[in-house]
């Protein structure tokens, strides 16, 4: 299975999805004009990974600002993780952020409310 690598732009985050490691890294702002287009390859990668093997999948997030359509897309991703978790798969999210911007922590908390898998929100020291 391929890795996925998307370079960061002003309105889209850096994305690295590593199939050998079972890790997805996303960092930066996300407010693309067409978020569904931007997120579809990421969602496809996750679906393939979850479908093709039974390795754990971990997310390392350093996302900062998400527009509402990106929030919707991230919720679609977390819903997939939740479903896998319910089926016994090991999945986890670590979302680290700069504590000066408390909005990031609040956003992560709202996502976490709907997830029962390990979801860690970590203010960076």
């Amino acid at each position: 299975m391929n890795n996925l690598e998307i370079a960061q732009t002003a309105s889209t985050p850096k994305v690295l999805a590593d199939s050998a490691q079972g890790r997805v890294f996303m960092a930066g702002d996300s407010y693309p004009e067409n978020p569904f287009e931007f997120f579809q390859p990421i969602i496809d990668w996750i679906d393939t990974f979850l479908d093709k093997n039974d390795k754990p999948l971990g997310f390392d997030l350093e996302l900062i600002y998400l527009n509402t359509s990106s929030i919707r897309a991230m919720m679609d991703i977390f819903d997939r993780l939740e479903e896998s978790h319910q089926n016994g798969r090991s999945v986890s999210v670590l979302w680290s952020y700069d504590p000066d911007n408390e909005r990031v922590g609040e956003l992560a908390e709202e996502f976490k409310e709907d997830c029962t898998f390990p979801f860690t929100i970590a203010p960076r020291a």
Partner: protein
Amino acid sequence: MSSPDLYDLREIFDRQQIMVCFNGPINAALIEEIGRALRDYLNHQQEAPSAVADIFSVYIEMTQNIRRYADQHPELAGASNAAIIVSREDDHYVVSAGNVVASDDGVALKERVAGLSGLDRAALKALFKTQLRQPREGLNGSAGLGLIDMARKASRPLSATVREIDAARSFLSLRVVL
């Protein structure tokens, strides 16, 4: 007066404490650039990072709504033009944006804004979460979350005004006080 008097215009900007003003055709690249300038300016003013985040977020939702609406209404003359103002009023930042809409859409948006005005923080959060789980098929390319998100960030109810341009079109202005 045949040419715009920049001195007078500047007086108005200063008096109304307008920091950013744009009027014209808007696209994704411009939204990004103006947003960058806005963030830089606010950071330079030593604003709290959470305040900068809220202002930027409302600015992005408003301008992307206008873009999306224009894309969906290529037949509507002037719909791709946006008027955007970020200003200060007393101790608050105000983000305002206006665009040409079909008259019915202007009325409908005004009603949606009025519907949100009676909701407290908990109700707005619940509504946001409900809207977040709407099936994508019925959404018409938008997540339908922008207005609710703005209302959650605002310190006062959002205000929308509609001014008739002709029989079919209106100018819609939305104002968010942070």
